């Protein structure tokens, strides 16, 4: 019988926003099973929401995630507006455009963040540094438009809290113009590089059937050929008035997930540009006073996939029940098929490919079961992953010439 070793990944790190705990069962190099434990950061937000009035809940749910911090308030206000008759009927035109711009800016910064970390894990630190360098101007845009680099506090039931200033529009256009060549560069760096291709191809595969079985969402589903995107299927904001494409891949491996996210950057830039060209003048807030009794569902396409909120009201000024389902809740569970069967050097990038919070992986540690002796820590696993890339570079040296 071969020697089975447990590799615990997680759960805590001061930088984590989503602590998760993966236990990999490893025989030799091969991952044979995985146990996923979550809940380390369960803050009871669903329960807290029942004690806050409708305006306060938007701020509360914004704090669920620091990266997609506009998706949760957006899904929440959509749920309340569903009770009021629907976003399109309640919210003024200009506010719809501002909401769409914020939603897409957020996708840009989130995907760039992911790309940088993915680059780091496979030993491409240049990709890491450059991706984060080009993410910075996106955060500057947020600061200019909303006043905050994160947690924008833009969403309220019936509209948005801050208007887009006249001088913001050329600034945003310029930022998009400057970001485009950078995305071109990333596309070239990832799609044309034989080393990255052979490093990421055919690892962590989630087939279309598995993606449906695990009900995954977002780029994780689209990279496996599942054709879903809330922005198209149930348009919110002004997505149905713009021309853009849903990015679909069919392989379901880490490479497909990477390509899907890079190509989505182009769509986001295009969406923001169209919004800036078309944005009308007018009110930004419908000034909603009361929410009647009822129940509503709101969902948006967060950078990681469908973010789902259910709100039940009884005519008072607080929700009676607020159910929140973040996209990672579905996606992280699918690691059970993605990581099993692969090698330990692919584990870091495979677990990361669904885009959970990355910081978890910095707490990787390999423990030899019988002696409980720590033989590897997180950096060692990242090093393993990077070494595999270097090895591939060596092998491919002749073909690269």
């Amino acid at each position, binding site marked *: 019988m071969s020697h089975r070793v447990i590799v615990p990944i997680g759960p805590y790190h001061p930088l984590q926003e989503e602590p998760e705990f993966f236990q990999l069962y490893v025989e030799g190099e091969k991952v044979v099973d995985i146990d996923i434990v*979550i*809940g380390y950061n*369960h803050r*009871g937000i*669903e*329960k807290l929401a029942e004690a806050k009035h409708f305006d306060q809940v938007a701020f509360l749910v914004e704090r669920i995630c620091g990266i997609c911090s506009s998706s949760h308030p957006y899904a929440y206000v959509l749920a309340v507006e*569903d*009770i009021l*008759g*629907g976003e399109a009927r309640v919210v003024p035109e200009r506010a719809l455009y501002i909401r769409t711009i914020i939603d897409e800016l957020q996708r840009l910064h989130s995907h760039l963040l992911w790309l940088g970390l993915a680059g780091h894990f496979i030993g491409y630190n240049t990709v890491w540094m450059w991706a984060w360098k080009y993410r910075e101007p996106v955060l500057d845009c947020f600061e200019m438009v909303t006043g905050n680099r994160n947690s924008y506090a833009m969403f309220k039931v019936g509209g948005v809290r801050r208007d887009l200033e006249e001088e913001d529009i050329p600034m945003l256009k310029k930022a998009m113009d400057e970001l485009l060549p950078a995305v071109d560069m990333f596309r070239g760096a990832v799609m044309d590089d034989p080393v990255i291709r052979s490093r990421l191809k055919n690892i962590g595969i989630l087939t279309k059937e598995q993606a*449906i*079985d*695990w*009900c*995954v969402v977002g780029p994780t589903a689209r990279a496996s050929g599942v*054709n*879903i995107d*809330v922005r198209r*299927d*149930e*348009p919110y904001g002004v997505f149905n008035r713009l021309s853009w494409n849903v990015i679909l891949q069919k392989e379901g491996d880490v490479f497909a997930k990477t390509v899907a996210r890079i190509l989505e950057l182009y769509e986001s830039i295009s969406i923001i540009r169209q919004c800036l060209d078309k944005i009308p003048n007018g009110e930004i807030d419908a000034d909603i006073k009361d929410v009647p009794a*009822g*129940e*509503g*569902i709101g*969902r948006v396409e967060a950078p990681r996939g*469908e973010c*789902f909120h*259910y709100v*039940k009201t009884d005519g008072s000024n607080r929700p*009676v*029940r607020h*159910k929140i*389902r973040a996209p990672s*809740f*579905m996606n992280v*569970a699918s690691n*059970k098929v993605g990581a099993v069967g692969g090698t330990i050097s692919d584990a870091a990038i495979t677990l990361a490919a669904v885009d959970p919070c990355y910081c978890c992986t910095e707490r990787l540690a390999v423990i030899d079961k019988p002696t409980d002796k720590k033989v590897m820590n997180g950096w060692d696993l990242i090093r393993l992953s990077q070494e595999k890339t270097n090895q591939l570079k060596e092998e491919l040296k002749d073909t690269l010439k």
Partner: protein
Amino acid sequence: MNIRDSIRERLGDKIKDWKETSSRRIYLSVDCADIREIVGFFFTELEMRFATASGVDTPRGLEILYHFSFDRTGEIYTLRVLLKDKKHPEIDSITPLFKGAEWIEREMWELLGINFKGHPNLKRLLLAEDWPEGEYPLRRQNEP
């Protein structure tokens, strides 16, 4: 045949109440005993995607809402069941039908105390290991 007709034809009087709050939000009340059959029909035959399930503690009993997304039309079909026995609420698990329901059923089991019969791996998901047995944070019995 459109999807509403398929549902009406196949399920007939298994649907106790059909409510549409807007053009894309359909709420169907059904009996607990039929849940696995109906969920199987939605997921396999109609190819709906399971979004999530919401457990709600109401004065009449514990309610579970199974939210299914029909992505071709952007509609959300919600199946509503009511478990009247608050002391021993239980219902058939839908996890044997597809893997995507495993976590949310574990969550409802620990937060609301609903027993899912036939769940392959019913253990704690979010609560700490030392959380007392029989205490369900989303139940309302402790509120004034």
